[in-house]
Every structure is written in C-alpha cells, then in structure tokens.
C-alpha cells in the first residue's frame, strides 16, 4: 500500500542521460504527469537511488507509488502496459517483437560511440567500424518510412532519438559522417527534432560535447 508521500510517479534521472531521456520522451508522448528527480552520479549517489536500484546503482529508475522499475526499455514496456492512451509498441505480435529487437539493438549506438572517445588506436578503429555497421542497419530498418514505428512515432523512435545529440561528437571522434553513412537515419533525426516531446527532453549537441569533454577530464582520458 503506497503512503501518501510516495504516490505517483518519480523518475530518478540524470540530465544528459539518453536512457533517462527515453523515459522522459515516453512520459511526454503519453501525457503522463511525473516528478523529475535529478540524481548525483559522479559524486555520491543518493540513498534513494541505491535503495531503488541496488543491483546496478544506475538511472533511470521509475518509482511508481514507491516501487522501482529499472532500465529504460523495461520502463517503456511498463508504461505501455500500465497506462492507457497512446501505445508505443504496435499491437501485432510480430511487429512488437521487431520493435523490442531494434530498440535493444540501438543501445549499441551509445556503447560503440562511447568507445570512440574513451579509446584510441585499434580499439577506436574497431568501434568505428562496428558503429558504422550499426548505423547502416538502423538506416536499413527505417527504410523509406517516416518513423521506425511506420506512420507514427513509436517504441523504437523513442529508443533511438536520445542518441541523436551525441552523434556529432561521435562523428568527430570517429571521423565519419552520419549523413553519408546513414542518410535516411539523418533525415529521420531532423524529422524528430521538432517533435514537442523530443525537443522538450533532449539537450543540444554542444552541451553533450561539453559533457563528454568533462567526463574525459574526470576519468583522466587524453
């Protein structure tokens, strides 16, 4: 039974986290009210965060009446199941499986992109090659459709769009161009940028790049 003060939704998040942004965009798309709670990640993590996600100690965590739901895609599935209104996942079972597949696959954009600024030499070159393949695969999956969800902005769109402000940094560290490597994906990114839920949740690439520079200093990376 939820106590009065624990009622409702609280999102434990970090301003620049693309995984947190997936949740913010989903909540905005569905028109669900929630309390945003910025978490300290580089310094001391809050007791609330440590209690809510003791396994990974990571954001995002969605607290629903005090009970924690962890991991961005788990949260997205949860929101679709609990709240009526605009569903993010398609209703057809095969299309749902495809959406889950590509949303999970898109995590690689961030994993590989991060290696570009963390690593050098052969490791960076390897990450670059893999990232180009991932972007090409996403480009192919999107095809000539407006969104990954087809005519409508959906589950995979929400999953991928938070990585868009990171792409200019990845391009610079990896010395490649998304426009060249994945032109349909680049067009899709521009198409999504003006969407209210997206514009209201994402930070400009310059801010993301500043953050990467700060992280590099923090971890002593050249």
């Amino acid at each position, binding site marked *: 039974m939820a106590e009065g003060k624990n009622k409702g939704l609280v999102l434990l998040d970090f301003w620049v986290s693309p995984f947190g942004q997936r949740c913010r965009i989903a909540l905005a798309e569905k028109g669900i009210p929630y309390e945003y709670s910025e978490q300290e990640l580089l310094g001391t993590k809050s007791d609330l965060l440590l209690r809510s996600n003791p396994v990974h100690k990571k954001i995002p965590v969605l607290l629903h009446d005090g009970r924690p*739901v962890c991991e961005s895609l*788990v949260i997205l*599935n949860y929101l679709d*199941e609990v709240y009526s209104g605009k569903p993010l996942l398609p209703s057809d079972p095969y299309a749902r499986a495809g959406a889950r597949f590509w949303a999970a696959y898109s995590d690689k954009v961030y994993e590989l992109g991060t290696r570009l600024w963390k690593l050098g030499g052969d490791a960076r070159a390897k990450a670059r090659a893999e990232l180009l393949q991932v972007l090409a695969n996403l480009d192919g999956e999107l095809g000539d459709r407006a969104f990954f969800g087809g005519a409508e902005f959906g589950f995979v769109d929400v999953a991928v769009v938070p990585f868009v402000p990171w792409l200019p940094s990845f391009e610079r560290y990896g010395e490649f161009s998304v426009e060249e490597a994945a032109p349909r994906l680049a067009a899709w990114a521009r198409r999504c940028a003006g969407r209210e839920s997206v514009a209201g949740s994402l930070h400009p690439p310059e801010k993301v790049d500043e953050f990467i520079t700060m992280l590099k200093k923090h971890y002593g990376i050249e």
Partner: protein
Amino acid sequence: MEKTPENASQAAPLKLFGSWASSYTHRVQLALRLKGLEFEYAEEDLGSKSNELLRHNPVYKKVPVLVHGGRALPESVIILQYLDDAWPETRPLLPADAFDRALARFWCHFADDKLGPAVGAVFASMGEDQEAAVRQVHENLALIEAELRDGAFKGRRFFGGDEVGLLDVVLGCGSYWLAVFEEVTGVRLVDADAFPLFHAWLRDFEALDEVRETIPAVDRLLEYARGVRHMLLGLAGAGAAAASAAAAAPAEAPAAPAPAPAADIAVDI
C-alpha cells in the same frame, strides 16, 4: 470456425534454428514445449552456418532463430515474449501483473548481461583471473539469492510462482552449465550452503519433465565443455587477455579461428 488473422497465424508452421549445446536455443525449445506448440527443429553447425540462418538473422547471424509462418524472430528473450503475445491464451510465460513483468524482464537482462558473462569468464580463465571471476559469479548469485530470500521472489518455488515462467526458463537454461563447469574447472560455483534457495530452485527446475526433455545429457555437456576449455586454455597460453575478452564478450567473434560455440558456451547461463 472462421479463421481470424490471429487463428490463421497460430496455425502457421514453426521452425527453430538452433544448436544442441546452446542454452539460448534450449530456452526456446523449453518455452515451445511448455506452451504445447509443435515445431520443426533444424540443428545448425555454428562453425559453418546455413544460408537459411544467415538470411533469417542477418544482424547477429546467431541461433536461436524462430521462424513462424515464414517470418523470422531472433534473440531468445524476444522470442519468448513473442510466444506469449502470439499465444496469449496458452500457459503464459510472463506474469500477469505489470510490475512483476518489469521485474522478470530486469532479471532476464541481469542473467544475460552479468551472470552469464561472469560464468563464462570463470570457464575461460585460470589462477588469479579465475579467482576474480569466481568472486564475480558469487556476487551475482548472492543478488539472486537475496531476492529469493527477502525480495521480489520471496516464498516462491519458482521465479514465476507455483509454475515456471520467463525468468525460470532464462536462468534455468544455462544454470545447468554451472555444475558442468564446476566439474571441468574444479571450481565451486553454486555452494548449496551459500546459495540454498538458488540451489533448491535449480534442483526443482531440472526435475521438470519438459526441462529433462530439453537439456542434453550431462556426459555430452561435459565432453563438450572439456573440449572448449582445453581450447580456451590453449588460446590463453597464446594470449590470455584476448582469450578471456573473447570468451567474456559474447557479441564478439572469438579472437582465434575457434568455432563459434566457444563464444556461445562462454555466455551460457
């Protein structure tokens, strides 16, 4: 009876591409059996994958792939959720409650992202590296044990409740490697005293008819594991870092010209 689209698709044939020693394949076989669904099985030689498999899973080129009415589904946890979506009235694998479903999904990711690679690392290493890997496995098992003892799964026979569910299938198909690896490496992974609830759950899981039908005989698994360990340690002589990195990073191909099973076995849990 009039064929609605749902009925028509339920009637369409199922074909599973898999590998006999792959716990990810076993997950799907077990799920199909639990749901009472008939399927054709095609064994893949992971060292020489069929064109059909590569066509059905161009992104990962891996088993298992379930083809339903000609449409391909890769990734075991995604396949299992698909089975529930496509056959909602038949023995659900996921819990009914949304919060419980979120927990099941979370712990499935834990099994694949944390526990599996940790067990693989034990298998692929020796000496101090192995000791560190064993500690990691124990930390991961301790987290699961805690959930069984005081947390989300308290008082349950299976993670799914009275009957096995998604998380049982995911954790269970793979946990049999623990005993096999213990035998082959001589390292204790699941101490019944340290992890009594996990140990009891595994024993109950492995006693189920559908599970016994699905998991290969222990001596076959042992023979296979001995062969892989021998090869991995041979690689370790040549370049320990590369070998353990290859074994512990399931998404990447093995560093040496080893057959793909080396990477599969390393992540299986």
